[in-house]
């Protein structure tokens, strides 16, 4: 029998292992640095960080938790897409199938639903922490702005997902929500001054959102595409700008007096 260290030594010397990790890991300063910048995922981090980044009390890890929730939603969301058709004839029964036919369908849907609620909660708490530590002050003003757009996108991600099960809850929540669009000054048919632009229910901003004068098949398709493609893409791009700027602005903010 070989001892554990011997086995681990053997694995690390193995050709396949070396081809993946590119070099030996001997726990030297150099190796610890290499482990970070030699890895496409880890190299979002600097090689060294200030102690506060590791202690929970400063950031609460909230930005990271938001990102984790997002990744979880992308993964569960992609799996859900295999079982779902965005049409009013099939959407509702697809969700029923998820409940009664698809293996682990219930927990898949639950994870996506509760994960979405969770992401909305933690992104707001992340914003609150950034405010309370004054981390939006110079030189991080711009990154705060990116964050505000991410906050709005997080709400919109959840909002567009609401309609997809095509049940009463989603249908009426989206009806209530998009009716607000009809009240837009100038551009909504019930909004102030819109009569001067000859705005009607058939050419106003609400019509553009729904692809019709009522919530129907077009609205379902539109919300589906916003939800599964467009908003995630925009969010991913902004997240990478956000992370890039956290580093370029000097890492997690430190007391400046």
């Amino acid at each position, binding site marked *: 029998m070989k001892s554990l260290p011997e086995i681990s030594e053997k694995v690390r010397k193995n050709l396949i292992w070396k081809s993946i990790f590119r070099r030996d890991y001997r726990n030297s300063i150099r190796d610890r640095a290499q482990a970070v910048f030699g890895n496409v995922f880890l190299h979002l981090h600097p090689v060294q960080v200030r102690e506060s980044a590791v202690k929970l009390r400063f950031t609460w890890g909230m930005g990271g938790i938001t990102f984790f929730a997002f990744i979880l939603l992308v993964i569960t969301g992609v799996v859900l897409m295999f079982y779902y058709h965005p049409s009013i004839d099939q959407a509702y029964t697809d969700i029923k199938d998820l409940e009664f036919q698809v293996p682990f369908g219930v*927990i898949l849907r639950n994870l996506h639903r509760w994960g979405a609620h969770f992401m909305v909660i933690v992104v707001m708490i992340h914003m609150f922490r950034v*405010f309370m530590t004054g981390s939006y*002050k110079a030189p991080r003003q711009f990154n705060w702005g990116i964050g505000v757009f991410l906050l709005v996108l997080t*709400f919109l991600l959840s909002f567009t997902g609401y309609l997809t099960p095509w049940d*009463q809850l989603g249908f009426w929540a989206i009806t*209530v929500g998009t009716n607000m669009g009809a*009240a837009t*000054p100038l551009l909504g048919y019930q909004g102030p001054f819109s009569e001067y632009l000859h705005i009607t229910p058939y050419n106003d901003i609400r019509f553009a959102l729904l692809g019709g004068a009522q919530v129907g098949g077009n609205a379902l398709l539109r919300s589906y595409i916003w939800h599964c493609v467009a908003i995630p893409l925009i969010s991913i791009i902004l997240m990478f700008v956000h992370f890039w700027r956290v580093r370029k602005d000097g890492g997690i903010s*430190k*007391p400046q007096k």
Partner: protein
Amino acid sequence: MNPFIQIITQPDNIAIVIMIIMVTFFTGWAFQQAFDNDKLLAAGRPVDGENDKFIDTFKPLVRIELLIAIVVMVGLTVWSIAVDAPLEEIANPTITPNPAKAPWYFLGLQELLVYFDPWLAGVVLPSLIVVGLLAIPYIDINPKGNGYYTFAERKYAIIIFSFGFLVLWLLLIVIGVFFRGPGWLWYWPWQEWDHARVVFEPTRDLTSVIGIDSRSLPGFLIGAFVVGSYLAGGMIAPYRYWKKNNPELLSQLGMVRYITIMFLFITMMSIPIKMVLRLVFLIKYIWITPWFNV
């Protein structure tokens, strides 16, 4: 079952309960650290994190990230095993549920519909919230409190933001979720919802209080005067005050910044003001115009 337990354990409402617990906890933690740092500042000592050393990312940081990921994943999995996401009846445009509620994070805005017309509550105010958030780093010129928790060094910023976030955003959401029933009437969580209940609240407009028809020309002019003087007074009064007591602050701010700050602040304060007018004095509109009502 006790109706209170029933309403807070509705599957979608569990998220709100979790939110209340988390927000309370983190607000407490933030203020506790702020007060701790304030004591250090007062004693002229370095605040928490000021003398931080650098440590390796690999492994201390990577380890804690992994741990957090596992904790969150376990938490969400337990939540997903314990509670099933609801699926209501298939969408039916001919059956309107009462109340028809927006998604929970927009319920604060829906609550504003009691006090403002939809173009304000649903379009203008939300847009101004986003604009206001974007503006924060550029209008807050206080160089102190950058990168650490503190209350003493930025009292006004923290009070105003906390009021907006905790009260106007989150508290209104909680009210929308737990206290609003059919007809958007107020129900205590332990009260049974009664779909036949009608509350007759004779609301009136501001000018009718002094006996002038709000839809007449004098009513229009008085309304315009009241709204106009709120805006103008809100702009001019603090300016006068600071000019006398703190002229440096004004010159540091500059005109553009001053106007932006005051405009956002006046708009924010119009919400509690309008709520009091509506709830205490039963006043619906202050100003009626042919195009919109305020």
